[in-house]
């Protein structure tokens, strides 16, 4: 169990910054998920923490000890971190038990003690009796468990996961997700968990770090990330947020302000201290959009209506901004059809803070 601190960490490959000026403080026992589009530097960040890559600048501390800075780096074998790779990385020439017991053998632990620990680890991941199998003869989910057991057996102070569920089918994913949560609860280990699956991150993590092009763009609790995205990238990345240009008409008052969007006025949530400004953006989600029952709202055209059973997904383009596409769900009875005219209303939204303001 250890606290992990990343302090202005940058990693460049040649002249390309894969990770840029990232600072994160992961508390002892915290479950941190790292989320971001493909190629944003998640894996690189993890490999920096594990010590497989050297930082270009900045500092990494585990449990108070500096393990990486531009001056040097503690080898991965001396960091006491456990890591579970996306492709499991089980050694094909060893049995399951040998795979799990590897770190104990390297540490020259007494044979009997080691055997007991391996048994315990196998029991922990529900694989009793499979110790003699080869990894090649296991199913995907079982391999995942072996990888988990292998990383846990040495009781690491910090466990790193790199998209551990990406190769599993949907059902297995759900059950492994539960197991990870249970494991975290039971052991209280500090965990850094990389994924590109938002629901997974939301379900598991205490906090989520969103990365984009090497930078940390937001670090927040799942609820805050959803309701109060810090910038346009997070807003559109999380749950397919819709971005609309707005003019802020009033200053913030008890967490809300008035804005004009697509020609109509509405009240949205906002940060304290917001002031009137032009060219701002608001974020709303499909649940925030409904058909207008009165004269409020804005007119437009239904581009596409896709019936999805119980409700239809409507893609709508407002008259005031014909290039925009707003999507929302209309429950049965569905009345809108392709090409129909309609009037919509936005119930609420979130005013995205101006660029450059701290979060």
């Amino acid at each position, binding site marked *: 169990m250890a606290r992990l601190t990343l302090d202005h960490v940058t990693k460049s490959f040649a002249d390309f910054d894969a990770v840029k000026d990232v600072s994160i403080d992961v508390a002892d026992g915290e479950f941190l998920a790292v989320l971001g589009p493909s190629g944003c530097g998640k894996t690189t960040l993890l490999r920096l923490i594990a*010590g497989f890559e050297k930082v270009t600048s900045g500092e990494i501390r585990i449990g108070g000890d500096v393990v990486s800075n531009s001056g040097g780096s503690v*080898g991965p*074998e001396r960091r006491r971190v456990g890591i579970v790779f996306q492709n499991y*990385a089980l050694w094909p020439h060893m049995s399951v038990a040998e795979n799990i017991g*590897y770190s104990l053998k390297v540490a020259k632990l007494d044979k009997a003690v080691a055997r007991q620990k391996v048994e315990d680890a196998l029991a922990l991941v529900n694989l009793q009796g499979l110790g003699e199998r080869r990894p090649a003869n296991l199913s995907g989910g079982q391999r995942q468990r072996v990888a988990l057991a292998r990383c846990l057996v040495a009781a690491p102070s910090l466990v790193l996961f790199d998209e551990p569920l990406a190769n599993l089918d949907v059902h297995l994913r759900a059950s492994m997700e539960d197991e990870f949560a249970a494991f975290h609860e039971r052991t209280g280990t500090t965990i850094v968990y990389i994924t590109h699956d938002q629901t997974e991150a939301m379900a598991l993590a205490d906090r989520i770090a969103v990365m984009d092009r090497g930078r940390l763009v937001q670090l927040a609790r799942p609820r805050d990330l959803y309701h109060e995205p810090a910038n346009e990238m997070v807003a559109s990345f999380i749950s397919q947020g819709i971005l609309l240009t707005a003019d802020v008409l009033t200053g913030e008052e008890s967490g809300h302000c008035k804005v004009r969007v697509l020609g109509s006025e509405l009240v949205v949530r906002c940060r304290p201290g917001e002031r009137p400004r032009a060219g701002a953006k608001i974020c709303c989600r499909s649940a925030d959009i409904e058909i207008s029952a009165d004269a409020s709202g804005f007119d437009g055209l239904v581009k596409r209506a896709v019936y999805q059973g119980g409700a239809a997904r409507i893609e709508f383009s407002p008259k005031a901004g014909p290039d925009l596409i707003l999507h929302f769900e209309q429950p049965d009875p569905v009345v809108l059809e392709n090409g129909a005219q309609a009037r919509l209303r936005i119930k609420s939204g979130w005013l995205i803070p101006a660029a450059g303001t701290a979060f």
Partner: protein
Amino acid sequence: MPTRIRESRGQEMVLTAAAAVVIVLLSMLPMLRLVKEIVAPGGILSTAAVEAGLRSPATWIATWHTLVVGIGGTLLAVLSGTLVAVLVSLTDIRCRSALVLCYVMPLMIAPQVTALAWLQLFGPASPFLKLFGAAPPLGTKNPLYSTSGIILLLGVQYGPLVFLLVRAGLRKLPRELVEAARAGGANWFTVLATIVLPLMTPSIMAAAALAFVSCVGNFGIPAFLGIPANYLVLPTLIYQKLAGGGPAVLGETAFLSVLIGMIAMAGILAQEVMSRRRDYRISSTSLPAEPYELGRWRPVVQAGMWLLIVLVLVLPLFGLVLTSLVPGYGIALTAKTATLDNYRFVLFEHDAATRAFFNSFWLSIAAAFFAVIVAVPVGYLIAWGKQRWVRLLNLSVELPYALPGVVLAIASLLLFLRPIPLTGIQLYNTVWIILYAYLARFLVLALRPTISGYHQIDRALEEAAQVAGAGLFTRMRTIIFPLVAPAAVAGGLLIFMTALSELTVSALLWSSGSETIGVVMFSFEQGGDSNYAATMSVVTVAVTFALMLVTNLLAPHLPNGVLPWRD
């Protein structure tokens, strides 16, 4: 419509039939003929040939020697090749591609040239040792004329072969497997011993099998180093018997060549059996592991590597060049004695030598040209063809190259000793029998790169042409050939380089008027004219290096691994 279907089927059938005929003629026929000679010499089932062979003590001595140098050379090659592969692939050593180029170079040099170069380096007449006055007195025995000398040179010659295979295996090692071990607390040497090397055993064993086959089939090195010490291995025993007895002893040598073939096969089978028990297919594709930082050991390791290069490549070649500049045996090289007379002599004056250059050049060009022409359609059938039996063709093309060269040479002799039936054409004692053997033996060198070329091409390119209405032959000419041409041509150039200074096959097949470079070099050396032999070697090595440079120009268009010396 039916006629069109028939037409396209027809073209494919013509292609398949032509490929089958070529392969039967070049690969299966000689092997079958050889087997017949053992089982039923003269058409009657008999075990006489086998019994006679088994009774002769020379057979047993040569077999023992073959095994000793074969296993010794293999061990040395595996140890050195694996060590260099690990250092080059897994550490942060500098100038990697230059190192690889230099280390692999001996593979491109004919074994007898390697042998000659080393002999010149350490012999009492060594111009190199004489430069420092360190040469042993004239008349002392060259230390390389010995079992350990042969093993040493076989190891030097085939270490690069092991290196290439192990390096290819190491490149496919996913970094996660190494990293998982390091995260588990293992230091670099533990990872090497418990993860990397065990995972590489299939590669290492395949490399060992290949090195073993090459060592037991090698003729040049035991011919130059063993014959003077009367240390005979099976290939040199066959050579001596044929040189002394002519066609009369062909039956006897057929038995010996099958014996070598069986030893080689035993090596391959042993590898098959062992690797079946350890099938670690590594499936994931990933980046290779971060190189291990040697830190303050880096200069030491680097110096060691370059020292090795100097020992196995630079010094021998340097010694060879020095010898080619000395006017006669045992004369020290000084500014005054240095001369280019040897070059004038072998290139323009000595009849057999000039003829040999001419013969070897056109034989190599013809073999390369033919192989490229054949490799494209045969590769097409093997890589993209639908018939499964075509893949068997692939195996039978590999055979004449996988088996030691003497085996094919003896088979060709048996096949063409008498005029070809029906036509009355006589190949025996002409240069054509050498050409036949070259075609059969080297075809696979062009076929392999061509097949990997096919695997890299998106089949849709051909299908698009097909949809556009092009028949098979049109597609071959306009689409397929241009696409695989670089790979096939690179294969052709490899054949040219290999055939140019080839000795094993031509030593048994040559006749007066059809000498090859290798044969004349060998007879110069046997006659004590090492200076001329060295001069011819320098010329062929220079041609080979020049060709390597030319081939490099093709590199951007080639699949990885086609040019062994490119990293």
